[in-house]
């Protein structure tokens, strides 16, 4: 393999890694599996670096590899059901690959929208995602019931999503 295409692919991988990882998380539903899949995906992409057509966009091309690696991952982990069934996975993978190119824009919007959330919602999301605090710890720290914590997490995520939509519509 020439080093030049491989270098280019690794560079593109670094640049678009977050986008691809988010794509895989949306397919498999959890971060740990998605990271395993991304590791395999990156290997596949570098192996096939010579096949990459520079005139085409990298992310949709890479998404295809990620999808195929997701299928392989399912095969290997057959006993453990993943979030999506095969047929749903295929539909979502295809639809998402088309959307994913705008993911960087969405990320900027997410940053802006997070800052707009009420302090309590930011604290809750920080505990849940950044601190990775167990639910019991969150309940204890915020002095709320499990039900309230889950309800507020759902609301916070939806607020973020709605805000992002709004931001993007102005973009």
């Amino acid at each position, binding site marked *: 393999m020439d080093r030049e295409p491989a270098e280019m692919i690794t560079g593109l991988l670094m640049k678009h890694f977050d986008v691809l990882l988010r794509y895989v*998380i*949306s397919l498999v539903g959890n971060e740990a599996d998605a990271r395993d899949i991304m590791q395999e995906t990156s*290997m596949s992409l570098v192996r096939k670096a010579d096949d990459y057509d520079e005139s085409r966009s990298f992310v949709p091309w890479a998404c295809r590899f990620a999808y195929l690696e997701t299928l392989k991952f399912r095969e290997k982990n057959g006993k453990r059901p993943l979030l999506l069934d095969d047929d749903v996975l295929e539909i*979502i993978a295809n639809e998402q690959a088309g959307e994913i190119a705008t993911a960087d824009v969405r990320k900027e919007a997410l940053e802006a929208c997070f800052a707009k959330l009420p302090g309590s919602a*930011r604290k809750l999301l*920080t505990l849940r*995602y*950044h*601190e*990775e605090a167990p639910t019991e710890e969150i309940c204890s720290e915020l002095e709320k019931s499990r039900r309230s914590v889950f309800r507020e997490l759902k609301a916070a995520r939806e607020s973020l999503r709605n805000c992002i939509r709004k931001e993007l519509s102005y973009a």
Partner: protein
Amino acid sequence: MRDQLETLRELVAKHCDEELSREERETLNDLLRISPALRREYASLMEVHASLVMRPEMPSSPSSFPIQRKTITKWIIVGAAACIVALLALTTKESSEAQPGFATLIQASDCKWQGNFSPVEGEQIGETDLRLSDGSASIRFLSGVELDLVAPCHLQIEGPNAAILYAGELYFSNEMSDTEESFSLSTPQSELLDIGTSYSVTVRKDGAEELHVGNGTVIRLDENDRRVTIEAGQAMRWQAEGQSEAIPFVDKPSAVRRAERRASRGKPIAWYSFIDQDGYGFTDAWNPWGESVSKGSNTPGPITRAKGLQPTEQTVIAAPLKVPIDMSENGVTYFSLFCSIEVAADIPKMFYMAFRESGTPDHKAQFSITPKRRTIGAHLLYADTDLNGRSTMALSLPPDGSKFQLAGKIISRANEPDQVFLRFIPESEPLDSFEPYAWSVIGQRVECDFRFDLVSLHLNTQGNIAVSDLNLGKTWESATNPRRK
């Protein structure tokens, strides 16, 4: 449709919070089959969840943006960076500061350093100035003292028992609290002496200082030699002008708690991944030595490029042990290595694994594997250990060219001899999630009281051996089926 949308949102939320049942999963899939609108809803919610779950920086300061820091994910460090380093660099990293070390950087999480010295994980550290601008780092001293730094942090290490925290947040712990000499941590305002302690100290930009004592006692001496003793569970704040007040106690900085949580998830204490691809080699990420290695030497040298998985010359990799192996204490450490060996000839020390004694450049406790052809039909591998004594173990060699996992267990005992166990796990054998009931080889009992802080792997280039994925952990699962992230 409205009901379906709300049900879908409910189910996605449950999934995000790990509360989704099997039946609800089926319902979610059914809904996603119905319409593109529902799938778009799913995708947009999952994208938000995915962005949040990728652990962006979310400082508690309400005015701060959550994701300003570029998310250099664990994977990039582990996978992409490994690719890129292997692909593009393949040059020996020179240690930026050669000096006698009495501490080791045992963990560096998303670290960015400023100043002249940018240590890498596993690097030994002596007297130096550390300026951490991003991430968190843990430094372990020979005395057992550990300092967890949370960026932004400026720390000057003055000696084996002394450091100055100029700015930032630091968590101090001393797991070997019976040491004779206490550790002196100074700040611009004070000197803190520990007595069997864990505590966190913060020096703020305005000169104010906070101290939270988790265990034991901390004696604080200020510039006027005023002495304050602070006990476990107490916390104090001093303004730059010297006024003090009691404040609510917080055990550990959040970054330290987070690191501990991750460490408790069955992660290996050391690992190294080889990339199964022709043209790739071993990265130099763990080479703090930068010196040539002479054949037969136990001192690791620069990492040399390997073609595929077949090393073309003596190859050394090394990885720090995030939790040291203290052979003088009761404990167990597991390791595993994927191998494929073509036995062409009797080759001494086809490969060996060694551990560095903490605070020294010496690598001891080799586990060397030597294949021997036997005319009686069986091939044997001899596994030697020299844990301050010698223990030779003969194993039946798997068929030539087959792949297998070499798993081992090192048992350390405080008042009794130590012991090593080995087992080959052929490719065809399903890997249990529990330690096997029987080991192929039970080593002789040996006496060893070393404290190891780094593992290295050496391959003899005459041997036709391919290796992949070295893992060490405190549990069977963490060594044989680790979650590295």
